[in-house]
């Protein structure tokens, strides 16, 4: 099995799916000749030509709106939004249109598109190349939201997303695009949406996270181990639908919870996890639920490392819930 980083895993998934299914078509800004600003679509323009790998004008609402129409026609568009921060011209198309077609047509108009977009901090991108605004989408019924944290999962989840009959927002943690390689199968291979993954088992504290935060969490878990705290790290992988069983199973075991996400804390995705636990698992809880998250400010530049949760802050929270 070849070793790949996340960029290569994305590329490999796209390449294979386009070979397998000629309805799959890519469109976005700078994805053609340039191969994407992060090179995720490298080589695909050469392979499939300008009718299947389309460099569009600079208009996200055009990209998503056209993708919806293409999906109705029977194509399988996989639009790219260059950075999640730039998705807002298409927000109306996503939340008012793509998300609602199946419902408002009584099931007659599914909207099978997979919107890929790099997101999150850690590349010194400041305000507009760093944000994690998955809440906007996870709060919108009709959309699925998927976020991988490693190359293997990236490929398997992206293939599932493209084949999924519902609109999927597939967010790629750009900070770890090239952070490491692992073995990724070539050929047919998928990972079902809606299944979390326990990346590290533990008994004392459950840490729930996704995307680039996973490695920070496992880092913290290792440090916690040294001081005698056993952490379980659960990678949610799919934010909608959430794998509720994985969450509850872990909490029933540990009774202590830390939720980690890069987004602004207030109403970030972790708020929903905490709320679900406050409803369904209050009797299991032995400590307050702590959230280690981005600050409730716009995303900064110079001090992004202070803004973003890291192993240190996570460990701090783990110790707090453990010693509560």
């Amino acid at each position: 099995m070849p070793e790949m980083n996340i960029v290569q895993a994305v590329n490999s998934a796209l390449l294979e799916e386009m070979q397998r299914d000629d309805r799959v078509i890519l469109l976005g800004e700078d994805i053609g000749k340039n191969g994407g600003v992060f090179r995720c679509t490298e080589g695909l323009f050469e392979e499939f030509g300008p009718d299947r790998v389309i460099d569009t004008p600079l208009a996200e609402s055009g990209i998503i709106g056209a993708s919806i129409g293409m999906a109705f026609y029977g194509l399988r568009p996989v639009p790219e939004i260059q950075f999640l921060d730039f998705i807002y011209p298409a927000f109306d198309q996503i939340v008012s249109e793509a998300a609602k077609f199946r419902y408002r047509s009584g099931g007659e108009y599914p909207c099978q598109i997979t919107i890929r977009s790099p997101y999150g901090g850690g590349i010194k991108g400041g305000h507009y190349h760093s944000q994690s605004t998955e809440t906007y989408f996870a709060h919108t019924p009709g959309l699925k939201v998927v976020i991988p944290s490693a190359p293997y999962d990236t490929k398997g989840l992206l293939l599932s997303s493209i084949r999924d009959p519902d609109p999927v927002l597939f967010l790629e943690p750009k900070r770890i695009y090239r952070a490491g390689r692992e073995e990724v199968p070539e050929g047919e291979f998928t990972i079902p949406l809606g299944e979390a993954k326990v990346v590290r088992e533990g008994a004392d504290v459950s840490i729930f996270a996704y995307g680039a935060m996973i490695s920070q969490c496992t880092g913290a878990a290792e440090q916690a181990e040294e001081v005698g705290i056993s952490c379980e790290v659960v990678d949610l992988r799919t934010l909608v639908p959430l794998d509720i069983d994985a969450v509850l199973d872990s909490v029933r075991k540990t009774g202590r919870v830390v939720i980690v996400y890069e987004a602004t804390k207030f109403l970030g995705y972790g708020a929903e996890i905490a709320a679900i636990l406050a409803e369904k698992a209050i009797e299991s809880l032995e400590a307050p639920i702590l959230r280690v998250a981005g600050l409730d400010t716009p995303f900064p530049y110079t001090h992004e490392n202070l803004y973003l949760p890291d192993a240190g802050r996570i460990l701090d929270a783990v110790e707090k819930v453990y010693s509560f």
Partner: protein
Amino acid sequence: MTKLLRVVSPDGKYKEKDEPPLSEEELLKMYRYMMLTRALDTRGMALQRQGRIGFYVPSSGEEAVQIGSSFPLEPRDWIVPAYREQGAALLRGIPMAGIMAQLYGNEEDTAKGRQMPNHFTSRAAHFVPTSSPVGTQIPIAVGLGWAARIRGDNVVALGYFGDGATSQGDFHAAMNFAGLFQANTVFVCKNNQWAISVPFGNQTGTNEVAIKAQAYGFEGVRVDGNDVLAVYQASKEAIDKARFGGGPTLIEAVTYRMGPHTSSDDPTRYRDEAEVEKWRKKDPIVRFQRYLKEKGIWNEEMEVEIRQEAEAQVEEAVVRAEKRGLPSPATLFDDVYAEMPWHIKEAKEAFLEYLEKS
């Protein structure tokens, strides 16, 4: 000012050389559908006033645009509508019973009572689900026409929108994509002079819509929207052009919203009755009737027959709709996703349990 295309003059006169090659049967079909649309609108407003349906959006005055522009379409083509396209929906083949079920939001509504009246949808009729947000449908129409072009199919997408919609960013993105990628898309702007209370003169700094196509490198045409044959002619040309790879066209159909914006609107607050009166004299149905008479294929008897048949069709659908119950509450939870995820399932169970209990 872009030249205004016209085939039939207000008094029904025409030059033979301008006439599109339509058979008598086709002409009468057009007329029937215009009458049917008017009958539906008249009844729809009445049903709303009587409190039998919650809301209605009349299209009176705009029958010629709807029927003329959608008449040249083939079944494999697509319509991407705004919320004032009931005439096109009927012509496209959505049955009157389906229209009425949607207005009532009852158990027979294929969309399960999920949208306000006038938000029609049909896969079979290639009539894309109507949306309320103004302008969002336009890029979708481009996507359909563009997909057809990419696949090499001689299929066209026709997108409707109002004069107000031309101010939206989505109009711009759509036009620009269509021009650049030569999508098989025809844009029909129903310039009915009003966007709720805002007159066209306060919508944009130009005094027409057609000219806006120049910003995207393709043709804009202006047509008398109360002349069904002129609309047909322009649309037929544009549709054929798009079908065979000639790219998009923007058609501005100059018409008038004779009624209120919707049943919730009171136009006397913002527009003069004199203006409405002026346009009432240009009624597209009357104009077409005069033409048919001029051609000798119309008479009073026929008129009565067509009107009665239209009214009967509407009446029958009303009777049927009123006999139907509401969609079952359980349907509230369907169709959010292809498969119901746990959180919706759980909510559904709790909900049905609660309903039973209470």
